[in-house]
């Protein structure tokens, strides 16, 4: 199980990387390698060129930019987990990362790699959906910004051009006091989620003022449960409201595969939406 031969490039700047993409047919970008390397080893993916981003400076790191958090595409999952800005402003990200692979893979895996690989069961795309994150890509004709809603085109296919490079992500966070919950069901610790749910709740005067629910693993791309989000606003953060949201989740589009059915994924979504919202409400109480 050895990769097919390829030509290896290790640019030191983003511009260089973009130029390489433009000038090479059938090139694959190597970020953390925790998804690409297995596919190379198994020869599922057989590119002529591999462009390694690991020697590029300036596209890793986390910055507090007021109402948003700026994250470099090459930021390692480990660093996201340990970062004080994330912990303070978007703690659900740090919590969810406990579910991303294992500590050895988080030491290498990057946020950008995960978003470009776009495995439907991956946690980070689900979180970016939750936050309506914006993705910064750089191409031969300069840069553009892609809202996450427009990022997944299809199963594991992001709307980034073959000659474009993801350089950073902007996460409009919810500030200090909000409730958050992340729950996931996988067969074993660190496995692909069968279904994962991330939820954010803003509550004032005993009423929900703002809600976000993202579901990963169920469909070919992360789902935002907007209908339930709208229904929750104005309601009290209680079991009835969450049960109603769960019922909406039961009706989502879901895929089937060799292991689990559409119906099971829908059932799980219902269970986990209720649990994620309950967790969000609970830690809101805790923090308040």
């Amino acid at each position, binding site marked *: 199980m050895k990769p097919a031969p390829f030509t290896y490039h290790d640019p030191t700047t983003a511009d260089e990387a973009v130029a390489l993409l433009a000038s090479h047919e059938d090139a694959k970008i190597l970020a953390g390698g925790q998804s690409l390397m297995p596919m190379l080893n198994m020869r599922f993916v057989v590119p002529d060129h591999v462009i390694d981003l690991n020697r590029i400076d300036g596209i890793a790191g986390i910055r507090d930019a007021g109402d948003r958090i700026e994250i470099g595409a090459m930021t390692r999952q480990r660093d996201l987990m340990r970062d004080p800005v994330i912990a303070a402003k978007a703690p659900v990200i740090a919590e969810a990362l406990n579910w991303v692979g294992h500590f050895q893979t988080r030491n290498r895996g990057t946020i950008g790699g995960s978003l470009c690989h776009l495995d439907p069961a991956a946690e980070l795309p689900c979180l970016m959906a939750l936050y309506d994150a914006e993705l910064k890509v750089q191409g031969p004709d300069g840069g553009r910004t892609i809202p996450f809603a427009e990022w997944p085109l299809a199963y594991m296919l992001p709307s980034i051009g073959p000659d474009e490079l993801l350089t950073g992500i902007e996460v409009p966070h919810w500030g200090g006091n909000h409730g958050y919950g992340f729950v996931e069901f996988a067969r074993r610790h660190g496995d692909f989620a069968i279904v994962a749910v991330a939820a954010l709740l803003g509550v004032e005067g005993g009423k929900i003022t703002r809600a976000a629910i993202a579901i990963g693993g169920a469909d070919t791309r992360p789902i935002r449960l907007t209908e339930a989000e709208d229904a929750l606003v104005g309601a009290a953060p209680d079991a009835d409201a969450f049960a109603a949201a769960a019922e909406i989740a039961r009706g989502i589009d879901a895929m089937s595969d060799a*292991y689990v059915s559409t119906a099971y994924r829908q059932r799980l979504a219902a269970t986990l939406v209720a649990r994620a919202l309950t967790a969000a409400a609970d830690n809101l109480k805790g923090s308040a």
Partner: protein
Amino acid sequence: MVVRYLGAEVQRMEDPRLITGNGRYVDDIKLDGMLHAAFLRSPHAHAKIRSIDTSRAAALEGVHRVFTHADLGPKYAHRMNQLYPAPVIEQNKTQYPLAKDEVCYVGEALAVVVADSRAIAEDAVALIDVDYETLPAVVDIMTALEDGAPLAHADTTSNLMGRMRSQFGDIEDAFAKADHVFSASFMQHRGGCHSMETRGCIGRDDPWGDGLTLWTSAQSPYLIRRALSRWLDEPEERIRVVAPDVGGGFGPKAGFYPEEIVIPLLARFMERPVKWIEDRREHFMSTTTQRDQHWALEVACTNEGKILGLRGKVTHENGAFVPYGILLPNSSLTPLPGAYSIAAIDVGVDIVFTNTVPNSPVRGAGRPCGIYAVERMVQVVSRNLGIDPATVRRRNYVRPEQMPYETGATLRGGAKCVYDSGDYEALLDKALELADYDGFAARQAAARAEGRYLGIGVSSCIEDTGMGPYEGTTVRVEASGKVAVRTGAASQGQGHHTMIAMIVAENLGVAPEDILFESADTSKFPHGVGTIGSRVAANVGPSAFDAATKVREKALKLAAEVLEASEADLDIEDGVVRVNGAPDVSITLGELAVQLSPASAMRVPAGFDPLLEATSYDGSSGSPIACGSNVAEVEVDIGTGEVRVLRYSVAHDCGVMINPKVVHGQIVGGVVHGIGNALFERMIYDDQGQPLTTNYGEYLLPLASEMPRVDVTHMETPSPLNSLGVKGAGEGGTIPAAAAIVAAIENALAEFDVEIDYYPVDPQMLTELIDAGAAEAAE
């Protein structure tokens, strides 16, 4: 005062090498001029091979040669031999080392590339053009025997490999007398080997020197040598097979594989050593596994739950070829009637071909299936009669006073299955106590009050271990005083070196560190049988004990002459023979050895054979029957269907324990393997025979994060069948696990009236059963 090693928790002598990165596994061996091989394997479950064009592959830089069946030449054009011939095999289908004109499972090898590196060999494999004519594939064992089912082999008229039956007692009478007859049917799916080290081998051919040498990651090097010798039609003396450090075996490495013919042949053709290391995808597709077995049983019992008879039918998946004869179906039947005295049994097996990888024993072989079946039927009786499962078992166990107890079943090789010793009810009591069985009702009620669903399950098992004929050992004191100990038995991590060193050291009066242990190299010991079926301790143990005793006696006899003392006054301690009461009068074992291996013109003392050495083939006079009772406590999350094993308690009896630390490790590892079978490990093929589970993200091996702490307690009922009183321990953890887990899940979900007819039990299956049960309750 003799140092006691037997029964002590001696730290393993293997470990210092292995924890410092100094092990020597097949892939660690590097020979001068060694080339690397990669196989082209069929992507089709069933197809005719119209033509193979290797020209593009052969032309690639770094490729030395490409071989197909035809390229091996007429001398090597025949099918592999049957390792275990048996009369019930109606269709003895064995494969060609490289497929000739038909492939019968995805993963069957049909060409091989020899290149400078494995990577280049893989590049070339992708360039081999094969014209296949695909044929219909049979995958489902339940329909494989129906008229019009696709045939696994183009030249047959049926998918029936053979039929066998275990039959004793008066079954008609048993069912006629019964107060109740209950029935159940269920599918058992056991996964694969998945030793962390895949298979792999190195071939070297030196016709003017050492002959043919094969280093291979295997459990039975001598069986491989014989099979290779027969296939090549060359004498065993010119073939050397070595199993170096082996990274786990668990059954599938006990056989003889096509690669173990092809790789040495390539070395012969290339006149250079050739290495092949199986990669993990190959392991999924070409290493033998166990997979499906369907049972449909009826149990006859009294109102009190006394089981009178068991009858029914098993459908056993064989896969595409028959490398292991009927080991698997046979060992599925022989454990019946389990730990119970059941007077009449009549269970038949249909062994069916499918277009999947050939089947082989996996830890426990068929025993886990046979025991699961019996335990399920005990569960059925308990459930239907509303009698506590522990109580039903008490009413059915074979009792100590019945030992030796002849079940009526026949073991492989024709011997009657006789339970030699053990107190099954006492063992159950120990398990129940360890599990706080009496306190469970309270735990369950408390959890239920919080909306949590707890369940408990019990299972008991017997295991026929230590099958013969023998596993010999040679013990020889060297001039240095070091003691060379050699045996044929290969180790895949069971700690044979430590166990045997302890036995010899204690008997001979030397330190375990002074023992030079070598095994699993056919050039070092004349014959070995193999490390399968929990047989090594009960065979090598006694032979090592006996050989060491003989050497001790010889040493004392010689020392008595040399020291002019009476043997009765002599003792050996730390390699030195001393006269009791005269500590300064002594001679070392090394000095005694020199007297028996003198230089030219010197004399061997009169009345002594050369060398301070002895060889013994002492073993067990029959199969010592180990036994165990397990209690599993689980929690089911009805929101997700997830099963968590909260607590797992084992009471086990493998007779006298040589090294309790090693036995404990075997039991715990075995239990976790069994939990994997019960809850996680599933090898899925689609209806075209494509394996869908071909990576470790999808084939779910048990991880530390989901496994419980396993509490183990022991009874030591010495087996009367060997000099050490030992019984096998390697598989006793695995065999009863699935039954305990499944029973616990049903107990947790009793209010939904859940009945489980398939394992591994997955969460989706459970949620469907829960929802169905809830809907029924609602009506």
